[in-house]
């Protein structure tokens, strides 16, 4: 899959990671262009459904990043987020989503280099994993279905 260009969606918090990404830009650090950044006031505001929506509309990888613990502009947003990610990662893994494609991280406003490195590593890993098609056009599966018990698709 040499020419596969993965689409990565990054959900980042405005005060730290977004500023860090901005710093990477102003200090001319080159990093892979595959990332589309979505800015949130805080990681505490990143709803888990958004990650599902991103995977469903064609994202091959996801980065979720915000302030380090104790740095949160709203004091406890990232603590709540941390618990939410722990539980959500367990649930997605249990259902069988490919959680290797979801990278969680803390990037502060001063860590432009870490942001660039994070993006490059994620893009490389997802490029090697290939496109994530398991969770796409599932809204066609079962439409007009005449069988209630779908045939077992396990290998």
């Amino acid at each position, binding site marked *: 899959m040499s020419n596969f260009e993965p689409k990565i969606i990054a959900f980042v918090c405005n005060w730290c990671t977004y500023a860090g990404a901005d710093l990477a830009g102003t200090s001319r650090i080159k990093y892979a262009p595959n990332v589309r950044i979505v800015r949130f006031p805080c990681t505490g505001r990143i709803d888990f459904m958004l990650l599902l929506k991103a995977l469903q509309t064609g994202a091959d990888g996801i980065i979720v990043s915000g302030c380090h613990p104790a740095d949160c502009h709203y004091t406890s947003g990232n603590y709540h987020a941390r618990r939410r990610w722990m539980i959500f990662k367990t*649930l997605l893994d249990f259902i069988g989503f490919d959680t290797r494609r979801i990278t969680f991280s803390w990037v502060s406003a001063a860590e432009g280099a870490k942001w660039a490195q*994070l993006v490059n590593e994620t893009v490389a890993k997802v490029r090697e994993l290939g496109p994530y098609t398991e969770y796409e056009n*599932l809204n066609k599966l079962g439409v007009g279905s005449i069988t209630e018990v779908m045939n077992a698709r396990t290998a």
Partner: protein
Amino acid sequence: MQELHNKIKSMLEGNSVALFIAYQKNSDGKITPTFITKPEQIKKAYYGDDCRQNLAVYVHKHEVKHFGKVGILANIYTLKALLQIYAENQFKDDYLKIVTVNPKGAVVEFANFQEVENYISENKPAPNPEYVAQVEKLSNLGREERWNYWLNELSTCIKCYACRAACPMCYCTKCTVESNQPQWISAPSHSLGNIEWHVMRAMHLAGRCIECNECARVCPMDIPLNLLTVKINEAIDTEFGQEAGTKGKLDFALSTFKVDDKENFIR
């Protein structure tokens, strides 16, 4: 059973309750809820280990609240549900009169939720071993196998929402699944709409599910829905040491945090 009937009779006649929710055993052996308002209905009341439906779902019902003072016969799961709902400040202290039958067969009436909390800490049921084993078996499968298993199971969901209706913790007046601005969950029951629905349901029950396993019992398609919340409860127990329905004050996973919560996957 006679002791239970006398208790209900005294509550009804002392009009400390206007309605008493209990179980009844029908001629064909089926256990169904019964709503006792008049003394002559008391003789139908029944309690046994085969009473599985979680009657706590009825305390949210508009027409039940209309009765004012309500009594409820609770098994251990109903007690855990009522304590968790009370912890989430959903009803005042004097709304409910809770009665249970303890393992020794004695009828116990609780004066307040502190007594309920103590009773639960003594009689707390262990997670159902059958479901723990199923979660274990599934967790050990490969990722693709697990994905195909759940995709196959969840694709049969017909979105009748019996799992939501039978769950005592699902009491939101407007469920996220009913929101269409934004359309968080695709409404039709194709595989995508089903997966989105069951992921959201499990996440909104994270740290709140008391594992009465009613969602799996009532599913017309026999989808093992409860495994999703059993797995999350296991993770919460190991990582945060919390369990739903054991404390009277708000203390469940997603609405509290510890500064030194440990994790191994955030870089």
